[in-house]
């Protein structure tokens, strides 16, 4: 609800932003940067899988959850920001996408909480 006032501005701002974006149309990340991002993503995935094997031995579930969620969010953000160019693109796109994610997280987490599936 706190976002309410900013929503129209969000749409309105898109114009200047977009215009600015056109200026640096050609400042897309280089192929080298893409490969670097992919390496990071691969490393993060390896870490994730590693936690799985490690978990067989020790580490509490809670810690594993935290680590996995952090890694997942990192991967998500890397792909969205770089591969989907959201970092460089119009703010309008970012807001539409974030709106979808926030709404989805909001309603479904509330739903699952109402079902008390978290075991608390």
């Amino acid at each position, binding site marked *: 609800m706190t976002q309410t006032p900013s929503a129209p501005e969000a749409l309105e701002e898109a114009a200047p932003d*977009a215009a600015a974006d056109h200026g640096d149309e050609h400042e897309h990340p280089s192929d080298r940067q893409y490969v670097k991002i992919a390496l990071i993503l691969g490393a993060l995935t390896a870490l994730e899988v590693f936690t799985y094997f490690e978990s067989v031995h020790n580490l509490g579930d809670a810690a594993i959850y935290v680590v996995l969620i952090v890694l997942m969010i990192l991967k*998500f953000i890397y792909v969205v920001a770089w591969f989907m160019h959201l970092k460089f693109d119009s703010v309008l796109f970012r807001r539409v996408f974030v709106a979808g994610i926030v709404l989805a997280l909001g309603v479904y987490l509330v739903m699952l909480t109402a079902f008390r599936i978290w075991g608390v």
Partner: protein
Amino acid sequence: MTDVADPTPAVTTPTDAGHAPPAHPPTTTGLTHNKVAMWLFLGSECLLFGALIAVYMFAKSRLPAGEIGPNDVFDIPFTSVSSFVLLMSSLTMVLALSALNRGEERNFRIWIVATALLGGTFIAGQVYEFTVFVDLGLGYTTNIFGSAFFTLTGFHGAHVTIGIVMLMSALVASLRGRLSPRNAETVELIGLYWHFVDIVWILIFTIIYLFPQ
């Protein structure tokens, strides 16, 4: 026919000279209709996959004790490899777009084929995984976990398949000389879709496969 970057319209009049479609049609926001529409669609898809993932988590939590469940079927090393394959297809996808932007048709085709092949490998892995699960006794109707798992991953797989069809269409278009840096946006949009399908898998891989069961 291969390097016809800009097929000349049949009727070329002097006034047509200044008439080549600009890279970005003049719109109020300066953004193209297609890209706006694509992002709106992706925003909408967040709610779709969110619901499917939530339904899966709910179903897993209600699986009666003793029923065949995630621990009995998941093969993490195998799925890790196929996840990695899909992740890398995002890299080849951006490399394809980047090649097209530079006008390197050959490289574009190589990368687009690579992307489609990686996607195909992923789908093949999924089909294999499904058959293994069924052999282990987990069918679509076996229990609530089976229904939710196959529905979620099935929806994702269908998205990947559609993505592959789009990639192949782009390849055919390129072979027929109809893709150039000027209309690279089409490929960019396919890429957006492809990456979106990839990030959905990033979520699925962690939440469905890796979370302690």
